């Protein structure tokens, strides 16, 4: 039992929940720090009332739109960088300029450019995804061994076939890292954007759900929202990406 990592982690989680419950009961101030059980009740009732699932659906839809648009642009930029030296320089300059810039810092200007609504958030999400994905993909392509390149050319593949069937799989460990980092950036950016500007963008996402409940001093709901953010992040990062990793780079013995 002790040798099972899952069992150990479940035990730790149970201890943390018990500590939360004990501390909040001792504090006895539900406005500042609701109990674990109240948070769970709020979570269940928010789910059954359909408010929380709607917020989650809204947030995830927006996130996917931004993520996919970011990936498409990253693909274009990487293709340009791989094809020409000028493109490579451009990618290098742009990533070193924009990668350190937190996407959320662009939201005020995005609101002026694109108005209140989804578009300005999507713009910010693209910025969150684009640079890390493009940089990692490009680095992955460059790191494909000369031997593997020659093997690919040996089969007389067309340029497109050579890219999709040799270069992309060979660079996949790096690409996957880019996808993971891009996702993490996008997720944090989106929640922050919804929290601060949710009302102005007219969105009903998860960040807005937290913000609104705080305004109404429904603190257990605020905690339920935070818990949902954590759970969704865990599901995507540890379930989806881990599974992708297991059936690809781990199975191929290519993980870095």
């Amino acid at each position: 039992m002790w040798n099972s990592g899952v069992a150990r982690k479940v035990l730790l989680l149970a201890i943390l929940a018990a500590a939360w419950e004990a501390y909040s009961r001792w504090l006895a101030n539900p406005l500042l720090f609701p109990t674990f059980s109240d948070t769970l009740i709020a979570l269940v009732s928010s789910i059954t009332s359909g408010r929380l699932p709607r917020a989650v659906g809204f947030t995830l839809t927006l996130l996917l739109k931004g993520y996919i648009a970011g990936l498409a642009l990253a693909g274009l930029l990487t293709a340009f960088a791989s094809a020409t030296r000028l493109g490579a320089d451009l990618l290098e300059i742009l990533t070193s300029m924009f990668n350190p810039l937190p996407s959320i810092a662009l939201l005020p200007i995005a609101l002026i450019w694109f108005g209140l609504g989804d578009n300005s958030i999507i713009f910010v999400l693209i910025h969150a995804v684009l640079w890390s994905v493009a940089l990692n993909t490009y680095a992955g392509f460059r790191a494909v061994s000369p031997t593997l390149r020659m093997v690919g050319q040996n089969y007389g593949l067309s340029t497109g076939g050579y890219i999709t069937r040799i270069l992309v799989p060979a660079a996949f460990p790096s690409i996957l890292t880019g996808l993971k980092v891009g996702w993490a950036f996008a997720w944090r950016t989106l929640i922050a954007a919804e929290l601060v500007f949710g009302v102005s963008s007219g969105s009903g996402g998860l960040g807005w759900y937290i913000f609104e409940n705080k305004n109404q001093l429904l603190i257990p709901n605020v905690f339920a929202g935070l818990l949902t953010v954590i759970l969704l992040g865990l599901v995507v990062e540890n379930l989806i990406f881990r599974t992708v990793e297991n059936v690809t780079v781990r199975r191929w013995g290519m993980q870095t």
Partner: protein
Amino acid sequence: MSLLAVDGVTLQYNNGTQTVIAAHRVTFKVDRSERFVILGPSGCGKSTILKAVGGYVKPAEGSILLNGKPVVVPGPDRIFVFQEFDQLLPWKTVKDNITFALTASRTLPRREAEDRALTFIDKVNLTQFANTYPHTLSGGMKQRVAIARAMAMGPEILLMDEPFAALDALTRARMQEELLRLCDESKFTVLFVTHSIPEAIRIGTRILLLTTHPGRVKAELDARGADPAQIERLLFDGKLDDGRKNVE
């Protein structure tokens, strides 16, 4: 007509500051079913010559003709076997590595490609590893897969660039034997590059000796009855004190 005719080929590359001549006016011919070995010390340009035959490097002068047609780009009629273990696609199983080579090059449709893949996996005694990924195989097994893949393609000529150089001595000897057996079975034409004199004599039917800086043809001789000491003398002009003495 010879299968492969390399005529007066000079190969050079730019190392950033100056042009380096890798091979100077190299001429040789390879006939069908021959195992032609290019033998020479490191830096004699033998790998570059092989890459030029493969179509990866353009000669500065001279011509390379395969079946009378000039070699321009890489193609599935000249399949490479490299020294490096990473020549297998790590994201494909042993069987899929071979099947992919056959279908990607439009040599065979999928179903027949799979059958051919299994046949050649069997030829190199790796049947029980057909569905495993390359990273689980030993170095020798990887090279056997690479050889099986190259032979399954049924190329006009196999280009082998020191394929056994990274293997331990025992595995190396076994692989040499296996290669000879496979060649005898199917009459492959092989262009084999090595810096090991015993390997050249063992594998080759004919041997081309190259000297270094730049690579020039020193002699061409029959592998049968070749004398290692004489080859060594030819390669190094008797000067064995410069640390290039080949001990195998």
